[in-house]
């Protein structure tokens, strides 16, 4: 068959070229024609040279049969040159991007490591405070909230003092006991700062409003 002859010819031609002109292919034990099967994004400049080589070989074959292909030859060479440039550029850009990615990765790792070991104080600005969200004692309330709580605390403290004073006066009999209910209150010891809840026995004995209040307080405590 003529076809078989052609295949044999190509094979022999390839072997001759590979051994004499491009010994590297023998070393790699790969056919330059494999470059055609590769994914476009996997192509290297070497693959482009392989493709050029195969196309050049085929062109040689055609011209040897007597056909006029020189115009086509020049165009193909031009396309292959463009192809070479594009693949080269693509691979260089890819390499650059990979390097940049690796640099950023190591930079990120370094920052994460630093912030976990050094409590991240270096990442805060001059007028900023780093708050550890896991810290149960972290600041959580605003100055306004604290102000309101303190105001209320101080108001209650003042009211307690007034109440204590009045109670002391009633107890000592300086002030008249206007209502009968007040007599019952008098039965309770005056609540001083360190003696607020009455003892259990006292509360049981006196069924007054105050004693009920105190027993209620004890239940809640």
């Amino acid at each position, binding site marked *: 068959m003529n076809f078989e002859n052609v295949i044999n010819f190509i094979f022999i031609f390839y072997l001759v070229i590979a051994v004499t002109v491009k010994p590297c292919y023998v070393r790699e034990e790969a056919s330059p024609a494999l470059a055609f099967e590769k994914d476009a994004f996997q192509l290297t400049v070497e693959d482009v040279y392989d493709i050029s080589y195969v196309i050049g070989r085929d062109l040689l074959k055609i011209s040897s049969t007597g056909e006029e292909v020189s115009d086509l030859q020049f165009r193909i060479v031009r396309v292959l040159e463009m192809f070479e440039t594009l693949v080269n550029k693509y691979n260089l850009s890819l390499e650059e991007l990979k390097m940049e990615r690796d640099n950023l990765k190591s930079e990120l790792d370094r920052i994460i490591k630093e912030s976990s070991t050094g409590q991240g104080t270096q990442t805060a600005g001059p007028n900023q405070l780093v708050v550890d969200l896991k810290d149960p004692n972290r600041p959580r309330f605003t*100055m306004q909230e*604290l*102000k309101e709580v*303190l105001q209320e605390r*101080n108001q209650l*403290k*003042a009211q307690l*003092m*007034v109440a204590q*004073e*009045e109670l002391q*006066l009633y107890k000592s009999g300086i*002030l008249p006991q206007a209502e009968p209910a007040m007599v019952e209150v008098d039965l309770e010891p005056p609540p001083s700062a360190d003696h607020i809840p009455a003892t259990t026995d006292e509360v049981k004995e006196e069924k007054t409003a105050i004693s009920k209040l105190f027993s209620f307080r004890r239940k809640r405590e």
Partner: protein
Amino acid sequence: MAKKTYDLLFKLLLIGDSGVGKTCVLFRFSDDAFNTTFISTIGIDFKIKTVELQGKKIKLQIWDTAGQERFHTITTSYYRGAMGIMLVYDITNAKSFENISKWLRNIDEHANEDVERMLLGNKCDMEDKRVVPKAKGEQIAREHGIRFFETSAKANINIEKAFLTLAEDILRKTPVKEPNSENVDISSGGGVTGWKSKCCS
């Protein structure tokens, strides 16, 4: 409402750097006690002590402020109502003395113009650690025309004297509300007491 158990109510204010002993000074005066553990005051607190001056029962409501800068906005809002302000520094802490001018500026900015001021150099029991000479305290007080005492809450030195003197100074400026025969005696007595306290300070 019960009858008033006092004749006059004076509102006093304690200011000064954190840790100079404002709370201890007040605790010594109100409860005659002293505690060595340092608990920083949160924002603002107060204590009440009723004293008798020139036959008048005077209820002193004494506001104790946090010295820490972070409570500044809370504490300065209490300057306005104060009739007397005690500025406390620590004789063993130079920085607290240097900050006196800052505290005086705060008074100028936030307190009433006619507020009675007083300077206290606290911790005078710690002579071995003293870094502010008494003369320096006296000098700065003289420059600003205010009274000065060196005090010790721990050793109970000049604490009551300081509070009573400040109360007397305020009492002397307090206009008599109900004119009656007694008031003549009281005001004249106040004058004498005021002169005495000035003489002693």
